[in-house]
């Protein structure tokens, strides 16, 4: 008898310490919440596998995707890009107006909403956050985006719930810049910022109560090497159709799993509820054993994979061998011949298990708003490849080896990240395809960091296979790749002036589209960019994989999107179905 009583007490204590999540605060009459259409039910914890541990919880300094994914649950922004429609929509700013000249953006903020510690939010928090993000000493990775012509975008407070941003020149879709810029709590961070301690704030060992944001969740516990536990923010500023405050989930837990295979095994073992960025092979593995799992093939991603030739200006210290081969790589007809010989359909079938799309340009069909659908998709043709090589002065010796105009055999190496099995497979397919043209191609697997060092720093490579994209769908996010002095202008880094006439033209068009506010006119300019790139092939585009995700049957409102974070973008509306509803849904 006595023992049962003690047991009961223990159970109750456990319930208080482990299960108690803050219940949502009732909506205040003056609170301007955002109302969502979905419906769901309260309770439960959603467990997600991460491929690594976050490095920081500070939204201003976080650079890596993993940290950002966790921070995404804790923080909110003024204007948000809806990952599903790829359009911007109101968030902390309930509306905004753009002046006719496109130079000022006036944002109306939601009234009466509170941070996760219950303190009110107003324009001062916006002004403070902007000051931090544009501070040169803090040097946030997002700072570059907020500087136009060397001057940061200015912000002024008009009243406690209205702010105005002033640009020095028109900037297309400037409201998209606000996406993922977390609004910080001035009442917590102002002092450390003024004392110059901002960079040390919100590290992984910061007590949970000090990390305060406007996101759907707040930090509950961080267990190094194991998991981060987030709990419901009881003051979150969104409500569902029946005016109940979101989020539905009591807790959102990120466990550190490791690579994709490890995350898949955890999901199969039932330890996690959602898994994203699956490879086609792992996806079909799940499909085969599917016990009512929610499996989603969202179609082509915005990532583009390509074969890249080294067209960099090499200094004399370099291997003369590479410089000699650059004579071939610089010849457009050579690159066109390579492109014509590559069997993209096989790449999609073998490397992506059929769940992918071949590419002939830099914009994937996954980027619905910006892809130029009229770009030609030439069939694979060894004949035309041979014609192109012949016209460029190449010839074949009796054993079928391709010789360059000076009579030397054509032979080059493709470096590939050894950890990326899909790109390894692409390289092996390309090797075989080009051997049919008489080219001797070597596939050299390298550790990924060693590969990046060669591509970005010492240019000691001949060709490589890489992938880019996956971020925002807007062309402005691609500026750093296509503008000739961009930091990711991969084929020819650090150009002082555009090296070729067509690169100059791309520069002009890219800068012009940035200044153009009208979507249709911007689209026309970006279409031209895509045509020039497809015609000049600085990269030989190969394929884009589908976005593949899976969730347990119990996860409700699961509407994954192509853009990151694919499965958690609507985490405030995700919920866990209970037994009765589960039975009905089956």
């Amino acid at each position, binding site marked *: 008898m006595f023992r049962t009583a003690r047991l009961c007490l223990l159970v109750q204590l456990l319930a208080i310490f482990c299960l108690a999540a803050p219940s949502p605060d009732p909506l205040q009459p003056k609170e301007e919440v955002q109302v969502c259409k979905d419906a769901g039910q309260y309770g439960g914890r959603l467990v997600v596998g991460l491929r690594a541990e976050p490095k920081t919880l500070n939204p201003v300094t976080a650079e890596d995707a993993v940290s950002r994914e966790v921070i995404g649950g804790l923080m909110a922004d003024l204007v948000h890009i809806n990952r599903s429609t790829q359009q911007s929509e109101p968030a902390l700013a309930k509306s905004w107006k753009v002046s006719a000249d496109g130079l000022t953006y006036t944002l109306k903020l939601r009234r009466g909403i509170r941070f996760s510690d219950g303190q009110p939010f107003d324009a001062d928090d916006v002004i403070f956050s902007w000051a931090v993000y544009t501070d040169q000493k803090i040097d946030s990775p997002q700072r570059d985006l907020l500087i136009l012509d060397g001057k940061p975008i200015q912000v002024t407070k008009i009243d406690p719930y209205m702010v105005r941003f002033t640009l020095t020149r028109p900037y297309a879709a400037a409201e998209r810049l606000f996406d993922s810029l977390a609004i910080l709590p001035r009442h917590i961070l102002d002092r450390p910022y003024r004392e110059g301690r901002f960079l040390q704030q919100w590290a992984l060992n910061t007590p949970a109560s000090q990390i305060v944001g406007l996101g759907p969740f707040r930090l509950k516990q961080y267990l190094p090497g194991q998991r981060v536990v987030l709990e419901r923010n009881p003051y979150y500023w969104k409500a569902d159709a029946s005016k109940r405050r979101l989020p539905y989930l009591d807790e959102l837990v990120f466990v550190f799993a490791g690579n994709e*295979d490890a995350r*898949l*095994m955890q999901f199969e073992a039932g330890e996690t509820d959602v898994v994203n960025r699956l*490879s086609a*092979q*792992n996806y*079909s*593995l799940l499909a085969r054993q599917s016990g009512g799992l929610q499996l989603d093939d969202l179609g082509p991603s915005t990532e583009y994979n390509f074969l890249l030739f080294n067209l960099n200006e090499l200094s004399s210290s370099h*291997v003369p061998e590479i410089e000699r081969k650059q004579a071939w790589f610089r010849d457009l007809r050579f690159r066109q011949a390579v492109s014509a010989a590559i*069997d993209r359909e*096989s790449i999609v*079938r*073998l490397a992506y298990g059929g769940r992918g799309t071949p590419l002939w340009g830099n914009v994937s069909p996954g980027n619905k708003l910006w892809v130029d659908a009229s770009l030609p998709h030439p069939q694979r043709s060894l004949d035309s490849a041979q014609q192109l090589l012949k016209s460029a002065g190449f010839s074949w010796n009796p054993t079928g080896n391709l010789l360059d105009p000076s009579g030397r055999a054509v032979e080059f*190496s493709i*470096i590939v990240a*050894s950890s990326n*099995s899909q790109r*390894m*497979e692409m*390289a*092996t*397919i390309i*090797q*075989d395809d080009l051997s049919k043209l008489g080219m001797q191609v*070597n*596939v*050299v*697997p*390298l*550790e990924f960091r*060693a590969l990046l060092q060669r591509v970005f720093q010492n240019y*000691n*490579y*001949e060709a490589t296979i890489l992938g880019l994209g996956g971020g925002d769908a807007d062309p402005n996010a691609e500026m750093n790749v296509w503008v000739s002095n961009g930091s990711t202008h991969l084929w020819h880094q650090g150009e002082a002036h555009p090296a070729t006439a067509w690169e100059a033209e791309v520069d002009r068009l890219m800068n012009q589209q940035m200044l153009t506010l009208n979507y249709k006119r911007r689209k026309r300019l970006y279409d031209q960019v895509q045509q020039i790139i497809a015609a000049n092939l600085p990269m030989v585009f190969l394929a884009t994989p589908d976005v593949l995700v899976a969730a347990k049957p119990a996860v409700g409102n699961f509407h994954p999107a192509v853009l990151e974070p694919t499965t958690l973008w609507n985490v405030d509306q995700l919920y866990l179905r209970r037994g009765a509803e589960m039975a009905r849904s089956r």
Partner: protein
Amino acid sequence: MRGRGSILLPAVLLVLWHLAFVFAGFLAPYDPAEQQRELPYIAPSHLQFRGPEGFHLRPYACGASSVDVGPAPCYPVHFLIHGWTYSFAGLQWNVHLFGVPSWGRIAILGTDAYGRDVWSRLLFGGRISLASGLLATLVSLVLAMLIGTISGFYGKWTDEFLMGGAELFLVVPWLYFLLVLRAMLPLHLTAAATFLLVVGVIGSLGWARPMRLVRGVVLSARERNYVLAARGFGASDTYLLRRHIAPMTAGVLLTQAALLVPQFVAAEAALSFFGLGVSEPVPSWGNMLAVLQQYSVLVSYWWMLAPAIALVITSVMYGWLAEALQRSLKSSSI
């Protein structure tokens, strides 16, 4: 006498096993690098003696087709068939032990991600893997024997110095060493250069452990009564080493050889991963096994484990031979 008899069987089997790889071109129905892109990850064909018109003496190979194309087609198996051209002993040949007509396909161990024949790749890969494993074992055992014997026999500071060196070798972080080595070498090496590099790297990294064992044996052999007696009779160091000490280490070396060969064949897989091994499309057991790092391949396509099974067979046979050799050494020394 009994000892000799029991050596014969494992030795003959091992010779046969290695001959299979020497005659890889004859035994392989397909070019190991040939991609059949419509047939990725095809399960092994099964043989049956029922053709289109009932029972046949000629076996039929069934199953090699892309998965979703109805019932598995069957193709008649021909022996000593003419197929792809390979070079052997400086000549071009096109005769193969078995095969199916060119309109069909036989895949007795299935196909890999590119539709390449795993059986053919296993044979050609075995050439490189076994040769590099054997040569690397030879290199490291020669080093181990030389250094271990000197260290154990001369003792004192020579021993201290060499043992210190060996310990240093054991604690060097090889992973980083290999990354640095890879960065220093030119991007592409010819197949022969890669092969020598693999042998050199594995062989020179592997000597420290057997060297310590050899030293231990030499240390104890040196103090044996008959060695002391021989020394008393005025035998020179070289005589002692050759006549009394070196034979004592044979057992250790043979056991080590049997252990090291499979270990070194596996080490080649690790080197492939760092871009130091044999690269595509040339097969080796190492790079064939590398795809098993993908969980989906490991759990879906069991035939991709064939190189691992070949590796196990190799090590079992070497182990058997080593044991038999040791037993016969013991019986002859009594």
